[in-house]
């Protein structure tokens, strides 16, 4: 198959799999097989694409908005470039891990509406592929909305009053910001540049003055509600009512990363880092990101609910990536791109562990975890590794991306931001490390001994989380290939 066809196949495959999942709703085993097989196929397809990425294969499906004299027609179209491919690779790889995990989780938890769950999950992955391979802003916007809509049933999976309230917050913020901010920004870009195509070096250069560029960037940054920049972060903790696999894949990998990926892609391919670096239009965004980064970490410290703490941690880590884009140097942008991978791997492990703790020990709060490490050694070992990676300590993958980001602040001479990065790392230690420490070194409370079901979670849950934790370590040694892979995006 030609690379062009592969791209289209990558987007369609999860959607087809969603249809098959619905068709097999009577037979759970077949249904889960469909999910796993398509996960494997997808990874293979995306993997094959990495070989041909240098040629930048691109394909337009159909013109949706006819062009006029000043403006080019806009098509639904896809292309493959390193940043998107990396994102697709992460998402498809982790889809398999999550699928295995969710089968274990959903079955041992006896959840309702499993078909709807797996179907929406597949659609969401399809949307992520669409975002990753989008050739222009319109295509990206389309799949961005599909992602929002398809994850709504996942967030409100339990159907309780609380879930519905959270669902409304989720949908309200994501839909609201995307329509008022992102859509408007896209239209404005179309007016200014006459095209919406992602091009190396940007399309806005020469069409905007720094002030307009700053305003437009603000529309993009706040319009992408999925990036959870403060003050638009409320949906992320709210969405933690979802079942843990959903939180794991969607709110550590797919949804939030789709947000920061959008911002990165806009920064690199619409504005162009030259334009951002030269005009200083993105300076304000650095400070917004820094503020988000610090305050989210501080809030995370105060949260006792494990998933909520992880959610605030995610908000803080997303701000790293936005910061990387707004610094607009080569190393910071690549650092941001790399952080997508590193953080995805780390955070999904942390969420898997949170879910495993819920399934194995029925605990949701940090304060309940005393002594649990002895009963669930694998889970907590994985948690420790992932936490170290998120904090950014060697020999975990996370240290490289943070290193590159710090390098970026130095290149730009933004010393205060360097300080912010360092303080934030300390805060990361402060809110993440107590969890394994409590589990391993504190005595378990007396009463808990008799309660049944306190052991490791089912194997289907434990194996994926060990694998992703191992991934965090492996990534430490893979940093250079990723760097080389990404470095071509900053060229014109």
């Amino acid at each position, binding site marked *: 198959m030609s690379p062009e066809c592969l791209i289209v196949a990558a987007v369609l495959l999860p959607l087809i799999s969603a249809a098959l999942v619905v068709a097999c709703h009577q037979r759970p085993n077949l249904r889960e097989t469909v999910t796993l097989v398509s996960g494997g196929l997808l990874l293979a397809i995306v993997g094959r694409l990495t070989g041909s990425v240098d040629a930048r294969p691109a394909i337009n499906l159909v*013109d949706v908005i006819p062009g006029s004299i000043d403006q080019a027609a806009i098509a*639904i179209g896809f292309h493959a470039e390193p940043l998107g491919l990396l994102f697709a690779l992460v998402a498809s790889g982790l889809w398999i891990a999550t699928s295995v995990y969710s089968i274990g989780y959903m079955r041992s938890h006896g959840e309702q509406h499993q078909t709807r769950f797996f179907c929406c999950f597949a659609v969401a992955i399809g949307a992520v592929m669409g975002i990753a391979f989008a050739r222009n802003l319109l295509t990206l916007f*389309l799949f961005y909305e599909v992602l929002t809509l398809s994850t709504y*049933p996942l967030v*409100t999976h339990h159907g309780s009053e609380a879930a*519905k309230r959270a669902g409304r917050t989720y949908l309200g913020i994501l839909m609201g910001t995307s329509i008022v901010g992102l859509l*408007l920004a896209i*239209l404005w870009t*179309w007016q200014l540049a006459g095209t919406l195509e992602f091009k190396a070096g940007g399309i806005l250069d020469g069409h905007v003055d720094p002030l307009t560029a700053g305003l437009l960037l603000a529309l993009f940054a706040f319009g992408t509600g999925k990036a959870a920049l403060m003050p638009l972060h409320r949906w992320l903790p709210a969405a933690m009512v979802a079942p843990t696999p959903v939180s794991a894949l969607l709110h550590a990998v797919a949804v939030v990363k789709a947000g920061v990926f959008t911002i990165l892609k806009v920064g690199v391919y619409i504005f162009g880092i030259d334009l951002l670096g030269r005009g200083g239009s993105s300076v304000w965004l650095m400070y917004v990101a820094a503020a988000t980064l610090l305050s989210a970490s501080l809030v995370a410290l105060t949260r006792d609910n494990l998933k909520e703490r992880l959610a605030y941690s995610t908000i803080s880590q997303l701000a790293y990536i936005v910061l990387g884009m707004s610094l607009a140097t080569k190393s910071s942008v690549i650092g941001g791109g790399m952080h997508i991978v590193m953080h995805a791997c780390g955070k999904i492990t942390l969420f898997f562990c949170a879910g495993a703790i819920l399934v194995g020990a029925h605990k949701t709060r940090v304060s309940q975890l005393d002594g649990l490490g002895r009963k669930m050694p694998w889970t907590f070992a994985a948690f420790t590794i992932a936490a170290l990676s998120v904090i950014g300590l060697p020999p975990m993958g996370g240290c490289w991306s943070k290193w590159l980001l710090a390098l970026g602040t130095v290149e730009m001479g933004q010393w205060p931001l360097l300080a912010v990065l360092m303080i934030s790392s300390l805060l990361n230690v402060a809110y993440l490390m107590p969890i394994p420490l409590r589990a391993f070194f504190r005595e378990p409370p007396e009463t808990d001994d008799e309660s049944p079901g306190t052991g490791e979670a089912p194997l289907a849950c434990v194996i994926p989380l060990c694998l992703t934790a191992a991934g965090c370590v492996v990534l430490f040694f893979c940093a250079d290939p990723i760097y080389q892979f990404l470095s071509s995006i900053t060229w014109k």
Partner: protein
Amino acid sequence: MNLEQLPILQVILPLLAAPCCLLLRRSRLAWGFAVLVSCSSLLIAATQLHIIHHSASGSISYEIGGWAAPWGIEYRLDRLGGLVLLVLTAIAAVTLSVARRLLQEEVPEERHHLFFATFLLCLAGLSGIVSTGDLFNVFVFLEIASLSSYVLISMGRSRRALVAAFQYLVMGTIGSTFILIGIGLAYMMTGTLNMADLAQRLTMTLDSVYAEGASIENPALPVNQTRTILAAFAFLTVGLALKLALFPLHAWLPNAYATAPTVVSTFLAGTSTKVAYYVLLRVTFTIFGLAFTFGQVGLQFLLTPLAIMAILVASTIAIYQGDIRRILAYSSVAQIGYLVLGLSFATQAGLTAGIVHLFNHALMKSGLFLVVGCIATRQAGLTLESIRGLGRRMPLTMAAFVVGGLGLIGVPLTSGFISKWLLVSAALESGRWLVAVLVVTGSLLAVVYVWRVVEAAYFLEPDDKTTSEPHDAPAGLLAAAWVLLGATLVFGIYTDLPVGVAREAAASLMGVGS
């Protein structure tokens, strides 16, 4: 008989079919005949649009009785008219083809032939408005369409329909009388009723229009600078705004659409206000002209705020409605705001957006009302409480509703997105920042009111837990709803027809020439 006769056939076919329906009497016969007629109308409209779109002049003209244009009555159709006719007849054909099934619950069988006769009369009136090039003819056809729609609405099942029809009758009559005054005053100053001729004479000076020897105070004054013409314009605009249900003159619309038989709401929601919008375009652009409407009078300073108010206020009201049909009706008022907003920009891009939205919204809203009709065949209640869990009971029906709802919001790949895209980019192009922001805010409100229905249907459990097996609406009805809503998907992806035609139509309205 050749293709030249099409413009008149478009009008007299349904007009003469109406009395035939009256004579046929039997419900099934009358229905079959009406379907046949409406399908032929669709065919005629499609052929006409094809001819117009590929002709050099971009319009066709037909002189009734063989009398030449300014003296006789001329039928004139350009791209805009062709597009409106196409959507009008398409909706009529789809609606009529399922009308008999929908009427079973709502109108006694022995009155069906009356219903079909009135329906065809309404179709004839609406087609006539679009086809004619004579201003007084517009009034006559407007009244034919209005009178028949009052009758159609009053056939609703509940007694509220009677009150709604009466309110509509009073407001509609005031509106059309205003239009009549406007036409009279314009005729008084120019001595002609032919639109093209009128447009020409309005820009001439008084002495060249009046007979020689008439004593005129200020002979060099252009006709359109006289106070009489200003008054004529005001009366016409206000009258049309009433027919169009432009905020704040929309009071008749929600009651009428919510109480009429669903088949009538389906037809009228997609057609009657759209045709009124067509007339407004004709009056403001073709007859009075850009310079007069937007330069001398400054209509945009009135229409833009009203349109925005319509979008925001009506959408907000829609959020608080408990009945699906009222939600859709208020949404219609809001969508009319988008139409008028496009007009009020007075740019080619804005007009294009308005015309495209006319086309798209007609399909969407008719489709949505048809879905409501589908629901009504299976259960009595149409409130948000009574449709709880309907997503499971009527999956295909509610899926159609979701498609239409996404279109109303303007999600990509639906036709609603295209029109909103064009509208917002038209606003940005002419530097109307605030307007652009308010338009997207309006979409946000649409998210909320559509979501309330979707949430009720899919994510709320019904009160009585007797979840029966899936039981969708009858296949024919469902197919019809999917035809209309499927069309919104198709025109959301293949946009060449509506956008291409609308662009050229807008160009000729602006006097640019394509």
